């Protein structure tokens, strides 16, 4: 099922792109472009050919492992796209980890001490969290922590004057491999604000779903039995309770990862994060068709992959579920 979805996707993206008005040649050549140079560039880019020929040659490229060439920069996309993609993954993973750690614990404790002040506060915060425009939160964070207090850098993912030498392009891992802890510190500092902003919604959603899922489990018989047997409450909650409440939580986490990947555009814009969302957004503005096609395809493939992993995890957690 994965392959037809992805192929269908290339077709849809392709059609959407051809519907977008505006000739990329115009954007490449700018305001000073003359008619002749526009025509010449259009035909050089192959944009004057019928759509099915363009689509066919794109697909042929895909199957032979050629993911295309940016029409704006003329560089192969395979060379360009990787760092952006990894940058977004790194941001999303950190955002999600923050969301999971705080969100899940908040949810568990809220369920444990249902109707306590902690429960109320946590759930109000969670409600506010899912109701806030994240770009607004990002702006406010940026204003407060980096402009006003000067604690954290406001843009980018490294000190450009002293850049990280990329190995995997996951800068956290790269700096660790190189054993450069001052660089690691710089990288972490750059990550905090965007990751917190990006993770807020997920955190709130995870907290809410964990709480309601836990509440249900906590009422079940075997938890009562465990309690009655005199087990320490902490273990009852975290081991037995959480394990059984994990499935809906996992679903949400899987989905959030996909959403974070695609939804990072605004966060990346505000924090100047060189990620794939921003890369695709710029490509849309420049009508860089191959980059948009390939970029969206990669994000979508990743999304599909995550769903697959989540499905497999269900089966691992709950033997009753079988993956077909």
């Amino acid at each position, binding site marked *: 099922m994965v392959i037809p979805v992805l192929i269908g996707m290339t077709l849809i993206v392709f059609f959407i792109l051809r519907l*977008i008005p505006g*000739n990329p040649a115009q954007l490449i050549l700018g305001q000073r472009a003359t008619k002749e*140079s526009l025509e010449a*560039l259009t035909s050089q880019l192959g944009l004057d050919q019928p759509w099915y020929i363009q689509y066919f040659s794109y697909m042929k490229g895909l199957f032979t492992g050629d993911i295309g060439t940016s029409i704006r920069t003329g560089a192969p996309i395979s060379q360009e796209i990787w760092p952006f993609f990894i940058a977004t993954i790194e941001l999303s993973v950190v955002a999600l980890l923050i969301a999971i*750690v705080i969100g899940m614990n908040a949810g568990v404790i809220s369920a444990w001490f249902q109707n306590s002040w902690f429960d109320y506060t946590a759930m109000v915060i969670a409600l506010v969290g899912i109701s806030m425009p994240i770009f607004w939160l990002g702006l406010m964070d940026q204003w407060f922590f980096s402009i006003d207090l000067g*604690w954290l850098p406001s843009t980018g993912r490294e000190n*450009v*004057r002293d850049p990280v030498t990329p190995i995997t392009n996951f800068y956290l891992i790269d700096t660790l491999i190189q054993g450069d802890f001052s660089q690691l510190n710089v990288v972490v500092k750059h*990550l905090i604000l965007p990751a917190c902003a990006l993770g807020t919604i997920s955190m709130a959603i995870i907290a809410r779903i964990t709480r309601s899922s836990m509440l249900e489990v906590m009422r079940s018989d075997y938890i009562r039995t465990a309690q009655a047997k005199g087990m320490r409450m902490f273990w009852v909650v975290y081991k037995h309770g959480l394990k059984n409440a994990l499935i809906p939580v996992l679903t949400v986490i899987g989905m959030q990862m996909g959403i974070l990947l695609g939804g990072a555009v605004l966060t990346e814009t505000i924090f100047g994060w060189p990620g794939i969302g921003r890369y695709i957004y710029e490509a849309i503005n420049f009508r860089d068709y191959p980059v948009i096609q390939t970029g969206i395809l990669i994000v979508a493939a990743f999304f599909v992959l995550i769903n697959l992993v989540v499905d497999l995890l269900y089966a691992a957690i709950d033997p009753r579920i079988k993956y077909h």
Partner: protein
Amino acid sequence: MKTNRLLFMLLGAFLLSMALVGCSKSGQDDQVDSTAKAGKKSFVFARGGDSVSLDPSEVTDSESENVSQSILETLVTFDEGKTTIAPLLATEWEEADNGLTYTFKLREGVKFQDGTDFNAEAVVYNFERWMNGKDAAKFPVYASAFRGFKGDETHNLQAVEAVDANTVKFTLKHVMPTFLKTLALTPFSISSPAAIDKYGEDYSGHPVGTGPFAFEEWKRNDRIVLNKNKEYWLEGYPKLDQVIFRTIGDNTARLNALMSGEIDMMDGVDPGNIQQIEADKNLQILSRPSLNIGYLGLTVTRKPFDNKLVRQALNYAIDKDEMIKAFFGGQAVAAKNPIPPAVEGYNDDVDAYPYDVKKAKELLAEAGYPNGFSMELWAMPVSRPYMPDANKVSVFLQSSFAKIGVKAKIVTYEWATYLEKTKAGEADSFLLGWTGANGDADDFIYSLWHKDNIGSLNSTQYSNDEVNELLTEARSVTDEGKRNELYQQVQEIMHDDAPIIPLVHTTPVLAARGDLIGFDPHPTGRVITTKIDFK
């Protein structure tokens, strides 16, 4: 048990991330490190968009050119702060045969960054590469400046020859008053022939020139890193060890980066921030002399703008000073002509349309629209030096027109679509502008208002026979005084015809850290890094 292991893995992930959050907290106290710890003097310039190519002969966009100017050099250049011609790779030159031949003496002892010699052969090699381009898409500026390529009927460059090792002679077919100014344009920068041969198609990613900085690394959409050219021919320069061009798409994000010391200089300052930057003692504002025009075009083929009185009426309806104060941060002068005052041939005798609502209403009534009319007002989706915030200007114009009963609906399209549609004459009225490349009046008026350019750059679709004749005549005259007179006449006529509402000549601003010195905010919008230093 399997599930237990999974749980422990998750727990491990929690702990790791906890540790990360924890260690980040502990590091929060020390200030963000702004200067390089390696002790290198590096300069970070941030702009809104990345370069398209590092071979300037291939491109027309200023983002690409601004980086190339540090790597490659032209034969001649512009004087500091002006558009008069100064020597660069050529030390002197001579015009002969009534302007049909030019002979350049080249600077001696200059080497390209790859160690090969710069000489007459290299210059000839570069020009031959361009004139044999045969592809307007490949060398667009060459094609438009010299009207095509070798073999084309219109091609204007007869020959480029090496007279001796350090002398080059250019022969033209027809007189070209803007020849020297053209050679000063960045697309005519001289590259190392050895590098062009070596990289072939990939040369645009590996530029090698004679400039003060050598290309090091290009991480697309993020940064371009240049290192000091230690063999640079100008004694004692450059002052910096490293120049980094960074792309930060968002204006406010860029300003934040400047305020927190992550970058040293930026362009594309939002007008609303100018005051704030001026008040900040750690920052400075640098403004370029104006070489541009921002205007509201009125498509003369569309009703009711086919009526001259309507066009004039709208001209009376705008309080430009108020607008400049509020939406250009004061960094502009009110315009009355289609060319800026710095350009030779500017007609200062033209009387600007004053802000006069009553007069505007009278004219509208005379034109047969006593109750006004409805129109579309197109606002550019992008920020340009001549119009940093088109969105706000359009809202201001809308309320100005409302006062004379003209109901304007603000419309916007994506940039490519916007340019295409305005060229096709589909807009009633549209915000647009122009930045002069070489500081010549021809570059403004002929490009934008000659009938030959209808369908291409003449978006107002304006055509006045008298203007057309005068402009064509000015192209064949080399006498400066005579040319200026012709352009002054054109401005008189255009003032009366009013195909546009000239709004502003902005002085495009850059913001930089306070201790930066040696930067020349050149009117052409170039970024010259040779003499930049920190106090």
